[in-house]
C-alpha cells in the first residue's frame, strides 16, 4: 500500500505534536556521526573496487572555438596509459539542478576556458595525471568570445517571466520623502564543497553502477541515462555520503559521463575525481550581479515604491539565471514596483545554483539599501523593517502562511542588545578598532517537492527507512530517523535510515532547502501507512493505537507483529497550498564588527541570528545549518570573490589558496536561535526548509555594521581592506 498525499489543504492536525514520543526536534546526535569521525564513511572516491583504474580530465586552454585534433598516440605510448577518450557524449556543461535530462554535450565545441574535452585513463593516478598534462590538442580558435557581462558588446536577454512593472515607480520616487537609488555589485561565488566531485563507474554487461557524490539521485539517474543514451533502468547510482554540495552536486558533472564511457570501453572500474582547480573551473559558479535598487518611502518610512533590477550572466544556451529578486517580490510592501531581470551571455564557466540561489545575493543588496533608507530617514533599522511587512503579497494579493518575521526581528534585537547601538556612524573606538553594529532581515522562499519513501517495521520491532535521498551534511540521516522513531514509538537507535541508492524509492533530493520537509513528509506518510496496517492486524481502531517505547499499547512490538514485517510506503506531492499562500522562511541577523583604523581589516566580533522555519526537525543539525549559512555570509561580506580575466574569461583564483573561504579564526562564536513555529500550509509535518535561510541576507548585517563602525558604504562586495582604507575616518 501507499499513503499518498497531495498538499491541497493545510495540515491543521499536527500529528507529530500529539504522539506520546517527541524525539523529532530534539538535538539528537547524527546516527552517521561515528562513521564520519573515524574515517569509515564511504565517500565517492572510497570504494576501492578491485581493478579500478584512474582517469584525469583534460580541458580547453582557449576560451572559444573548436577542437581540431587531439594527439592521442603520443600519450598512449606513456607507461600505464590505457586509453584517451573524447566522445561526443562528454558533457560540455554540468547539468542544472532538477534538469532530469542531459545537459549540453559535445566537448569539441568550446564555450569557455577550462571546459572538459578528453579523459586520460591509466593504471595509476600518477600515470593518468602525467598523461593528462602531456595531451596536446589543436584548436580552431574563435575570435568572438565575450567575457565581461557589463561590456556593451555582450548580448543581453530579458527573461519574459521575470519582468515586473506595477504602478508608477518613477512617480513614487519623486513623491517620496526619503529615497535610496543605488547600485550594488556582488561577485561570483563557488560552492567549494570540501569533497571534490568524483565518480567511479563499473559495468556488468549492460548495467552501469555509478558511485558518485550527488545531491539528487532521483534526477541524476535520468541525466546520466540521457547523456549516455541508455535506459535509466540500467543504471544504479550510489551516494551514501556526500562531502558537501551547496548546489554544485545538484546535477551530474563531466566526470560521471567520462568515467562511464571509459569504463565501458576498458571493461574495468574507472574512477575520475576532479582536482580542486577543476571543481572551480568546470562545475557551477554563482553569477556575479549588478543590482540597481530604488526605495521610495513616505514620512513614516513606509515604502510606496520598490525597484530592484538585476544583471547576471550565464553561458549561451543555459536557461538558468540567478533569481536575484526572488524574495524582494514578497518581503516588503510598496505598491509601485519595478523589477527587471537581465542576463548577459558570456563565455565564462556555467552559472548555476550555489547555496540559496537568488536570496543569497538579492537579499544582501536589498538589506543594504534598507539600511541606507533607515539612515536617511532617521528610523531605527529594525523598526523600519517592521513598518514595511506587508499584509498581503504586494503583487499577487496572496496571503502568507506562518510568518514570524517581526518576532525574529524583535527577538534578535533583544538577544543581541541592539538598544546599545549608536545610530551615528564612526563613534565607537576600541584601541585601534572602529566598532559598529548592523542588522539585516533574512528571507527565503519555501518549497515542497514530490518525494517517496519506504519504511519497514521489521518483525523484531526495529524499523528501516529507505529512500534515494542524500545527506550532504544536512542531517537527513538524523531527521528521517527521528520522524520514523516517533511515528512508530521506537527509540532512535532502533531505526536505521538507508539513503543514497537509486534503487530505493525516489525522494526529493537535497536542494533548495526542500529536502528535509519533503522527504520527511514521505517518511511520515509511510509510517502512517504502517500504523493503519498495524491497527488492522491488531484488530483495533487506528485512533486507539498507541506506539511508545517499543510497545503497541502494553504489548511489545515484536509480539504484536507476530513474526511479520509491515512495509509502509509514503508519497508526498505539492498541491494547492503552495499557490494559496506565499510560503517562506524568515529571520534576522545582528552583527558587531571591528574595522582596524590602521589596516582597514574587518573582523566580525559577534553575530546573533534568529530564524523561523516551521517545525525544527533536529535542533542540533538545524543550528549547524544556520551556523554554516551565517558563516557563508561572513565569507560573502569580506572574502569570497571569483576573479575572471575579462580578456579571455579565465578564472584567476581557482583554488582554496586564492579563493578565500572563511577559516576558523574568521568566525566568532555565533548565537543562533530557532523560533518555535508550525506551518500547516507547508507540509504535513509543519516543517519548512532551513538549509539556506542562514545565508539570505547575512552578509548585509556585516556590511551594515561596517558602515556603522566607519561611516563608509562599500557597495561592491566583498569589503576587502583596500575598499575601506582611504576612506576611514581620522
Amino acid at each position: 500500500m501507499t499513503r499518498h498525499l497531495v498538499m491541497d489543504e493545510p495540515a491543521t492536525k499536527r500529528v507529530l505534536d500529539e504522539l506520546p514520543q517527541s524525539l523529532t526536534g530534539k538535538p539528537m546526535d547524527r546516527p552517521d556521526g561515528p562513521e564520519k569521525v573515524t574515517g569509515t564513511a564511504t565517500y565517492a572516491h572510497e570504494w576501492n573496487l578491485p581493478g579500478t583504474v584512474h582517469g584525469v580530465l583534460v580541458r580547453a586552454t582557449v576560451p572559444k572555438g573548436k577542437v581540431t585534433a587531439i594527439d592521442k598516440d603520443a600519450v598512449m605510448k606513456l607507461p600505464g596509459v590505457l586509453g584517451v577518450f573524447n566522445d561526443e557524449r562528454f558533457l560540455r556543461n554540468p547539468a542544472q539542478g532538477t534538469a532530469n535530462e542531459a545537459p549540453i554535450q559535445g566537448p569539441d565545441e568550446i564555450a569557455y576556458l577550462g571546459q572538459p574535452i578528453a579523459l586520460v585513463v591509466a593504471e595509476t593516478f600518477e600515470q593518468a595525471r602525467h598523461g593528462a598534462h602531456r595531451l596536446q590538442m589543436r584548436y580552431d580558435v574563435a575570435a568572438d568570445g565575450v567575457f565581461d557581462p557589463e561590456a556593451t558588446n555582450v548580448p543581453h536577454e530579458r527573461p519574459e517571466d521575470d519582468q515586473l512593472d506595477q504602478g508608477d515607480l518613477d512617480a513614487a520616487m519623486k513623491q517620496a520623502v526619503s529615497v535610496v537609488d543605488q547600485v550594488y555589485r556582488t561577485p561570483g561565488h563557488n560552492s567549494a564543497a570540501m569533497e571534490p566531485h568524483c565518480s567511479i563507474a563499473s559495468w556488468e554487461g549492460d548495467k552501469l553502477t555509478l558511485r558518485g557524490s550527488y545531491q539528487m539521485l532521483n534526477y541524476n539517474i535520468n541525466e546520466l541515462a540521457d547523456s549516455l543514451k541508455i535506459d535509466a533502468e540500467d543504471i544504479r547510482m550510489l551516494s551514501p555520503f556526500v562531502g558537501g554540495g551547496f548546489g554544485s552536486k545538484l546535477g551530474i558533472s563531466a566526470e560521471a559521463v567520462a568515467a562511464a564511457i571509459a569504463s565501458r570501453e576498458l571493461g574495468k572500474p574507472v574512477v575520475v575525481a576532479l582536482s580542486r582547480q577543476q571543481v572551480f573551473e568546470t562545475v557551477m559558479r554563482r553569477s556575479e550581479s549588478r543590482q540597481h535598487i530604488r526605495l521610495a518611502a513616505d514620512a513614516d518610512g513606509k515604502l510606496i515604491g520598490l525597484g530592484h533590477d538585476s544583471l547576471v550572466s550565464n553561458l549561451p544556451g543555459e536557461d538558468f539565471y540567478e533569481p536575484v529578486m526572488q524574495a524582494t517580490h514578497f518581503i516588503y510592501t510598496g505598491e509601485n514596483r519595478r523589477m527587471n531581470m537581465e542576463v548577459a551571455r558570456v563565455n565564462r564557466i556555467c552559472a548555476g545554483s550555489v547555496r540559496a540561489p537568488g536570496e543569497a545575493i538579492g537579499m544582501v543588496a536589498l538589506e543594504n539599501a534598507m539600511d541606507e533608507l533607515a539612515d536617511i530617514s532617521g528610523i531605527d533599522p529594525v523598526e523600519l523593517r517592521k513598518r514595511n511587512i506587508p499584509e498581503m503579497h504586494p503583487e499577487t494579493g496572496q496571503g502568507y502562511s506562518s510568518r514570524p518575521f517581526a518576532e525574529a526581528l524583535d527577538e534578535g534585537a533583544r538577544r543581541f542588545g541592539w538598544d546599545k547601538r549608536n545610530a551615528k556612524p564612526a563613534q565607537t573606538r576600541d584601541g585601534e578598532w572602529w566598532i559598529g553594529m548592523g542588522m539585516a532581515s533574512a528571507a527565503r522562499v519555501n518549497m515542497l517537492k514530490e518525494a517517496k519513501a519506504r519504511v519497514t517495521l521489521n518483525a523484531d520491532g526495529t524499523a528501516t527507512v529507505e529512500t534515494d535521498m542524500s545527506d550532504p551534511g544536512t542531517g537527513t540521516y538524523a531527521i528521517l530517523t527521528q520522524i520514523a522513531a516517533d511515528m512508530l514509538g521506537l527509540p532512535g537507535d532502533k531505526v536505521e535510515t538507508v539513503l543514497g541508492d537509486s534503487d530505493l524509492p525516489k525522494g526529493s533530493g537535497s536542494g533548495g532547502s526542500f529536502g528535509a520537509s519533503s522527504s520527511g513528509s514521505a517518511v511520515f506518510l509511510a509510517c502512517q501507512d504502517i500504523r493503519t496496517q498495524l491497527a488492522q492486524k491488531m484488530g483495533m481502531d487506528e485512533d486507539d493505537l498507541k506506539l511508545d517505547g517499543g510497545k503497541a499499547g502494553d504489548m511489545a512490538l515484536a509480539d504484536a507483529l507476530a513474526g511479520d514485517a509491515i512495509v509502509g510506503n509514503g508519497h508526498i506531492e505539492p498541491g494547492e497550498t503552495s499557490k494559496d499562500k506565499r510560503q517562506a522562511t524568515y529571520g534576522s541577523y545582528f552583527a558587531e564588527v571591528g574595522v582596524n583604523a590602521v589596516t582597514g581589516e574587518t573582523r566580525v566580533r559577534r553575530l546573533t541570528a534568529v530564524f523561523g522555519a516551521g517545525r525544527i526537525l533536529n535542533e542540533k543539525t538545524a543550528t549547524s545549518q544556520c551556523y554554516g549559512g551565517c558563516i557563508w555570509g561572513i565569507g560573502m561580506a569580506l572574502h569570497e570573490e571569483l576573479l575572471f580575466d575579462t580578456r579571455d574569461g579565465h578564472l584567476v583564483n581557482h583554488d582554496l589558496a586564492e579563493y578565500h573561504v572563511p577559516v576558523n579564526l574568521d568566525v566568532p562564536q555565533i548565537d543562533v536561535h530557532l523560533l518555535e513555529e508550525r506551518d500547516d500550509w507547508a507540509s504535513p509535518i509543519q516543517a519548512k526548509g532551513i538549509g539556506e535561510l542562514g545565508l539570505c541576507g547575512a552578509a548585509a548585517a556585516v556590511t551594515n555594521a561596517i558602515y556603522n563602525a566607519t561611516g563608509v558604504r562599500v557597495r561592491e562586495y566583498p569589503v576587502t581592506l583596500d575598499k575601506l582604507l582611504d576612506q576611514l575616518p581620522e
Partner: protein
Amino acid sequence: MQQTNLTINGQEHALDADPRTTLLDALRNHIGLTGSKKGCDHGQCGACTVIVNGRRINSCLTLACMHDGDEITTVEGLGQPGNLSPLQSAFVAHDGYQCGYCTPGQICSATAMLQEAKDGWPSNVSDDLAKGQKLTDEEISERMSGNICRCAAYPNIVDAIREVAEGAEA
C-alpha cells in the same frame, strides 16, 4: 617503483609505488585507508592532515617515499566506531561537522594541536612566545585555521576541542 616501509597506526606496511605517489594517495589508493581526505591536493585545506612522528602534516604535500621508517597515525588509528577517542566523541556530541569530509583532518589536527599546546608551543595569537598558553577559544581557532570546513562547523569544532582540552586539564 619505489619500496618504502611505513608504520601506519602501529602496523607495518611495505609500500611499492610510483615515486610520485603522495603520502595521501599512498594511504587512500594503495593501503586502503581512505579516512584521510583529499580536498585540494595542494596543502590549502587540511582535509588530508595525518600525524607523522607526532607532528601534524598535510599528507598531500609530501611524497610517500620520503617517509621510510616513519610512524604515521591516521584518523583510523585514533578510534573506531564503538571505540571513539575523546575528540571523536566530542565531535559527535557537539555536531562538529556536517558533511564530515573535513572531519578526519580536523580530528587529526586537533589531536596533535592539543599536544603542541601542552608542550608550550605559542601561536600567532599568543601574548607571550615563551610562556605556555591557556587554550582560549581564540587560541583554538587560530591553531585550527589550517583546516577548512566549508560546511562551516567552526563554532561546534571549537566547542568540541575546548571540551576535550578542559577535560585533559582537569
